[in-house]
């Protein structure tokens, strides 16, 4: 059996304020295998984005274990986490989070420029061009994000997430800021990427898009309520 890309064991996340503790995640157990397409859904505040952030090393768990490609990454330093994110994880956010002052090309090239071992300029150019082509934005490289529609911005975000050839794409509410036509196009792009071999983990509260995944996880009050595989019944 192959080593899962992500493995979560008994993961807890507690947010604390002066007078209150909130259990955002409790006892999460999860494995994501190479090539999978997983959706995580649930009502607002159930802990979907928190789980995604921890799996993407953007946040640290309060307790429990997190393995990335077999390596324990539960308590990495900020610098070590940054290196793994740069090399192995691609993020797509609801807000797109593109840098307004950079061109589309430079936004996509950014992860390559942060790489520990700098790449040659022509390699960067080739990789960016490839990704632009992949999301159908070849002619828009020199534009600024503010000159693009929401759908186009999200496609640039996808290209940026793909450019470093990550092991997994973590996608947080990718259609939250888009109209239905653009939302459909983005989800189709993501599905296509999965079909080409990209591992996908998508957080969404939209049942329609959650259903597109091959494995569906349903969260409620910080706990996994159940998960279903493609054509499977609900596994409690």
């Amino acid at each position, binding site marked *: 059996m192959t080593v899962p890309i992500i493995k979560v064991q008994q993961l807890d996340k507690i947010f604390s304020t002066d007078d209150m503790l909130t259990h955002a995640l409790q006892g999460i157990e999860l494995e994501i295998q190479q090539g999978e397409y997983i959706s995580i859904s649930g009502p607002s505040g159930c802990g979907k984005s928190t789980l995604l*952030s921890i799996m*993407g090393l*953007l*946040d*640290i768990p309060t307790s429990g274990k997190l393995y990335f490609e077999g390596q324990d990454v539960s308590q990495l330093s*900020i*610098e070590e*986490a*940054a*290196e793994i*994110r*740069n*090399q192995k994880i691609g*993020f797509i*956010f609801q*807000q797109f*989070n*593109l*840098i*307004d*002052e950079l061109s589309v090309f430079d936004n996509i090239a*950014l*992860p390559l420029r*942060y*790489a520990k071992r700098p790449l040659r300029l022509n390699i960067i150019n080739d990789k960016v061009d490839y990704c632009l082509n992949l999301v159908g934005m070849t002619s828009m490289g020199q534009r600024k994000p503010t000159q693009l529609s929401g759908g186009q911005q999200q496609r640039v975000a996808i290209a*940026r*997430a793909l450019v*470093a050839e990550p092991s997994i794409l973590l996608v947080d509410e990718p259609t939250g800021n888009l109209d239905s036509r653009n939302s459909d196009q983005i989800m189709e792009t993501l599905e296509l990427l999965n079909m080409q071999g990209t591992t996908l983990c998508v957080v969404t509260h939209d049942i329609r898009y959650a259903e597109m995944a091959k494995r569906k996880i349903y969260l409620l009050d910080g706990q996994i309520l159940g998960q279903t595989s493609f054509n499977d019944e609900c596994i409690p």
Partner: protein
Amino acid sequence: MRKLILRHNQAWASLKKKPGFILTVLLTMGITLGALLCVVTLNYLLLVEPLPYPEQDRLFVAEHKLIGPEKETKAIAFTYPGLVHLYKSKEAFEKASIMAYSQDVIVSHPSQPLVNTAYVTPELHQILASPMAMGRMFEASEAMDTNNPVAMLSYNTWKKEFSGSADILEQKINLSGISYRIIGVLAENFVEAELDGIGRETQVWMPWDYNQTGERGRQSFGNISGTLNFLGQLKEGVSQSQAQQLLSPLVSDRWQEGVIEMDFFKGWSVVMLVTPVKEVMLGDSESIAVMLLAGVMGLVLIACANISNLFMARTAEKQRQMAIQAAIGATKKHLFQAMLAETGLLMFMSIILALVLAQIGFFVMQEHFEQILPRVNELSFNPITFGSAVLVTVVFALFFAKLSTWMVDYRSLNTTLQSSGKGSGLQVSKKVRQVLIASQVALATVLVFANFSLLKDAVKTINAPIGFTTTNISTLVLNFASTDFPTQEERLPIMAEIKEKLEALPQVESISQSPSPLDGWGVRALTDVVSKERYTPFLNGVSHTYFGMIKQPLVQGDNFTLVDRQDRNNVMIVNQSFAKQLKADGDVIGMKISVGGPDPFKIIGIVKDIAIPNATPTGSDNADAGVPRVYTPNGLGSQRFMVKVKPGMSVSREQLGKLLSDVDSRYSVYSFDAADDILTKSLFVEITTAVTTAVLASLVFLLAGIGLYGILSYGTQLRRFELGARMAIGATRKHLVSMIISDNTKAVLIGFVGSVVLFALAYIGLSEYIQPFLNWQVLPMIVATIVLIMLVTLFACYWPLRQYINKPAIFSLRGSD
């Protein structure tokens, strides 16, 4: 009205939740506006406010300008008979008065205080319309040659020395053996025309006849004195230049007659200078006042930039609240009014604090700047102060309110409500932020550099080696309280006994019957017997123990001996500077120098130069040039002593007073001052400048630091989500710190270029003040300034960033903890 009160109540309710914000605005604006009000009032007083004398436009000071054979200015000072001649001629002036300034001891007073005295003709107080607290001013019965011994006291002297006694009039005081009947006390609000130096207050006024010029001096046209003055009211229709043209031949002809037999003055001439009294009183203080105003304006600009940043940050914070207000119908005008209520309240509180601080500033200036700036005693709140206070309150309140509402894009406010707090909806563009950083850097660089330069010059003077020691040395000058002056022969045993008793005091280590190197100097006309070349070095009569006590090294030849003093031998010691003036190689031992008498003096020794602070050679503006000095042996009847006490011990004035009266009751202490104190006093301007510039430089640096931190921190705050996004895709701390620094470097460099432009503009406008500072020595100052500003910038780049880069990336992306 109700609306206005309601608006201000709401503003206060909103503000009081942010005590840190209130405190920062209050302190920053309160302190800087306090300084501004203080300096504006001072500038008004010095540049605009007329002197408090009737017809002050017609009041002029006449001065005697002595011109040498090479047409060079030899001195600007009167001779006694020249002054009296001018006074008696009444030419060009409707009313005129002459004055001689001095110091004396009130020997009839139990504490025998040394007081500043002035001997004047009665017209002075009539011209000035001097207000009286009690009694009368001098009148015809005290005019020249009436010999009527009466005196007037200053208000402070009456209060301090006579406890404000109600029956002071008709009491008698004794100075130099003459008993004066007190006829009046000047009012507290009397403003003296300070012609003998800024900050000098005359404590006792006496009629001209009693001035301390000796009988020979009163007749000699060759005796030039800097303590004689002339003040008059020009006749109607006579202009300043007309007065000069009228008076010059009158005075010159008489002077030429007087010096016709003096070879030394061959080729010399005299012209009259007639200068408005205001110009003489103010001296170069106008430029000091303008420089102070420029410095404070710079501070206000920096403070203003800082507070602008704070208001922008506050507007950013209130964005959501404003969006809600806009959603329920608030127009742009409503938002402006709400903001104006806040800025108005804050500026009102700041200006109250500023007025309090300005009052403290007036007090500090009156206490400490009395000797630097004229008229500081007149500093008080006036309509200009209050008018300026109201103006700055209104202008700054409107400016900050306008700035805050300007950054709000009213049409975009709705999107703020829709974006659920994620992302930045602010409208302060990167360009505006860069302009703010650049202007902050430019201003801070100019001000820090200017303050550094002033500080450096002041510290250099303070720390300059003086070439002699003052440790444990005090100078004692005796006062003779009788008109029955002893002859030289009578004086010798008295002085010998005084010296002996002084040496016998257990606290005393040694005595030298000499003036200290810090006093007793007079300019003397000397002639090289061989070359007939004439010189005007400083001359002092000293004892044979003088150089040893002050540790001034003899570099060539011999010291004086006791015999030289006893026999009044014509020997002379010169310093290295004068030796070089006499002969280029400085080898002057054996040279003969005439001091005017029949027998020339022989140079027997050369001593090292000393550097008395602020003493420049006659006819030279170069403070670094060595001052030529000449020493002759003084007689054994000298009434000046240097007293060196044992370490850790001291002698009191009272103890010395008793010692003197035990020897001869006619003698008392004229002055007894530690040489260190005299030295410190002579460095007063430099010490004050150093302290002021150090405080200003620190304040500027602090304000600049706060300002740069504020704007950079604000810029970083705005980029929080961008930072989060970059961290999400793998940016490390190093990437982010480098990015923030490189993004701000351009603005900082523009700021440095801006500072060069500001300097260039300042140079065009104020080249005569700036030119003396321009030399290679400013290079380290420039480097130090740039390094300091760069360090502050680097700190301001890193410090706000660390809250994001040292936490998990999600902290930046979420926008909350």
